[in-house]
């Protein structure tokens, strides 16, 4: 009887919990009926839309069979790494900006410009740069565009008797003041947005970048990082959540967190998530530009981010790869398909498609669309390319060390030293 050992084994299988959605079908090889393996990270809404897209594509291309495999985010990357190591990667891969170069630079992903049938004529340079290496290889095309900004729960502002700020002119001290005023009404003021996405604009505001030019080290100084951490501590004094609340929030999906359940007035969020957050909190919500040092939104360092990239394995046979290319074209250029997804991954990058689906969007999605469109015109910051190899763990470093600091286990400058060293270790 070795029950403990058995625990470990069952645990392993639980960890690799995988929902295989498509039934097994006989795989056709090079007889003109290719089978394309397609892997994506799953969520209920996402899965339904992708399966619908697969069905439509197969109806149009009866010779092609798409075998989909959906895995929850956490297990997805382990599984993709294992499949790649075993020489059996999926043909069609949903990629995150964080891992695009990790795989691309190890020659696991195909250059999408070299694949026929993917029509990129409607995509501007900015959009394509999101999935491009510095030497111009296109490893992925974003399924949607979003930006990481502040979201405000309009109902809670009203209840607290606090006016919504003019987000084109507000500064950080306005931000602290509003957060503190919200907290006075018995709710939590504003969240910290701990990590890469909120640090990024802060660095821009101080003339620094997240990574150095060749992606081998952090691009910021310990002084500016310290100022960012001090800013978080200032917020903690001004209505920010307690360390316990941050820790509990980190363990649940956004919809179940403080902001998602209507207990917090403002939080950092991807613009694309507002469509899910607003109904969860049962409140009206608005996106706000990030505060700046100078009171000019154009100097706030906001930037566009791509999500749910479509990528192709570099190791596929020609036939499945060509069919997978056709599917990507379908996913990015067919209004009929994008309709299925709506704004789930953010604003669809093809403007023609956006025009086609805009009339059917919910009011919340239309607000997000307008916000991102306006931002796109006023962005002064260059769109950053994909994160460098090794960046996959950087977010985890911030979450760990900032939480420690919020618990009072280190000063801002000690924490900054620790984070900088850890980040450089990951990238080096």
């Amino acid at each position, binding site marked *: *009887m*070795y*029950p*403990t*050992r058995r*625990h*470990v084994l*069952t*645990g*392993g299988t*639980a*960890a690799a*919990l995988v929902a295989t959605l498509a039934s097994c079908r006989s795989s056709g090889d090079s007889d003109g009926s290719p089978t394309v393996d397609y892997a994506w990270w799953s969520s209920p809404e996402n899965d339904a839309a992708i399966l619908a897209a697969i069905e439509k594509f197969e109806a149009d291309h009866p010779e092609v069979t798409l075998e989909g495999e959906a895995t929850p985010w*956490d297990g997805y*990357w*382990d599984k993709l*790494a*294992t499949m*790649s*190591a075993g020489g059996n990667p999926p043909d069609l891969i949903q990629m995150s900006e964080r891992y695009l170069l*990790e*795989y691309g630079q*190890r*020659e*696991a992903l195909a250059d999408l410009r070299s694949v026929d049938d993917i029509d990129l004529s409607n995509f501007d340079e900015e959009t394509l740069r999101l999935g491009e290496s510095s030497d111009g290889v296109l490893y992925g095309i974003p399924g949607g565009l979003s930006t990481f900004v502040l979201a405000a729960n309009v109902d809670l502002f009203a209840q607290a008797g606090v006016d919504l700020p003019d987000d084109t002119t507000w500064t950080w001290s306005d931000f602290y003041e509003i957060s503190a005023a919200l907290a006075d009404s018995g709710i939590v003021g504003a969240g910290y947005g701990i990590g890469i996405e909120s640090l990024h604009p802060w660095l821009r505001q101080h003339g620094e970048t997240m990574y150095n030019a060749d992606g081998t080290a952090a691009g910021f100084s310990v002084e500016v990082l310290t100022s960012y951490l001090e800013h978080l501590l200032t917020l903690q004094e001004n209505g920010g959540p307690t*360390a*316990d*609340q941050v*820790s*509990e929030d*980190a*363990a649940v999906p956004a919809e179940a967190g403080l902001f998602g359940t209507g207990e917090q007035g403002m939080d950092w969020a991807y613009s694309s998530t507002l469509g899910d957050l607003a109904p969860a909190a049962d409140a009206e919500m608005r996106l706000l530009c990030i505060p700046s040092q100078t009171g000019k939104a154009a100097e706030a360092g906001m930037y566009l981010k791509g999500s749910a990239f479509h990528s192709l394995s570099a190791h596929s046979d020609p036939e499945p790869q060509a069919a997978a290319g056709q599917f990507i074209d379908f996913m990015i250029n067919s209004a009929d398909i994008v309709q299925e997804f709506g704004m789930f991954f953010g604003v669809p990058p093809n403007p023609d498609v956006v025009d086609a689906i805009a009339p059917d969007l919910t009011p919340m999605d239309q607000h997000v669309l307008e916000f991102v469109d306006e931002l796109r015109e006023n962005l002064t910051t260059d769109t950053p390319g994909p994160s460098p190899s*090794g960046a*996959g*763990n950087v977010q*985890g470093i911030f*979450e*760990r*060390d900032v*939480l*420690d600091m919020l*618990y009072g*286990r280190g000063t801002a400058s000690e924490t900054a030293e620790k984070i900088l060293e850890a980040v450089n270790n*990951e990238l080096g």
Partner: protein
Amino acid sequence: MGRRPTRDRRPLSARDKKEERAGFAFLSPWLVGLFVITIGPMAASLYLSFTDYSFLDSPEWIGLENYQRLFSDTRFHQAIGVTFRYVIVSVPLQLVVALLVAIVLDRGIRGLALYRSAFYLPSLIGGSVAIAILWRQIFGADGLVNWALALIGIEGRSWIANPDTALGTLIVLNVWTFGAPMIIFLAGLRQIPAMYYEAAGVDGAGVLRRFWNVTVPILTPIIFFNLILQLIGAFQAFTQAFIISGGSGAPSDSTLFYTLYLYMEGFGNFSMGYASAMAWVLVVIIGAFTLINFIASKYWVFYDD
């Protein structure tokens, strides 16, 4: 640990050889499993532990570099600290609870089978996803524990979210899954002849005296067996921390078990070579602990044969 009989080394006759072949044929399913599923991957991981292997590239020999890196990796030291604390606190606690419950059940209460199953149940679900949710309901800010504390006027905090107490909740979880050692203890208790207790009773020994001077000494081989098993299991603990911390060792690495860090380095960070080196260091650690216990056992384990 009996004496091994000396083997007779006479040459094999044709018939013996045939029998030997048949023997191996019958063993083959097990042998295939041993070589393909156990020894093969172990050898591969030993080789990989001396390489820089990112999963996507082919491995590159770097000698002892991975092992040297362990000395300066502060996260690795954190993982060692967390794991040792977990092992040292949870294993003895779990054995004590298992033994006490086994003794109570051994009294011959009615519905023994039912109780035995009920106490064993947590061991079956201890590593399941449901536990992650249950544990948050119990140890969260609005959880059961704080509700109970509020009744007696104490304001609790989020036990599972706080880095100071998060590991404690995992220790409680491990202690709670005491079913397996309990069953083994129960079987051991059943084998103690009643005449020892009767004799001790005649000599005027009370309940405690009988426990310390009869039950415990006779049970030492069973205690030792359970200790070794639980020790090895606790060093390899993975599932609970993986599920409850969402695979990150959160909050603030306070539940970063050795195997969890190993897994994160290997599968999250593409450092398969480094993860393999860590795996071999863990083999050495567990081996050393087991060896120490076997040596120490000579002084406290009593074999009644």
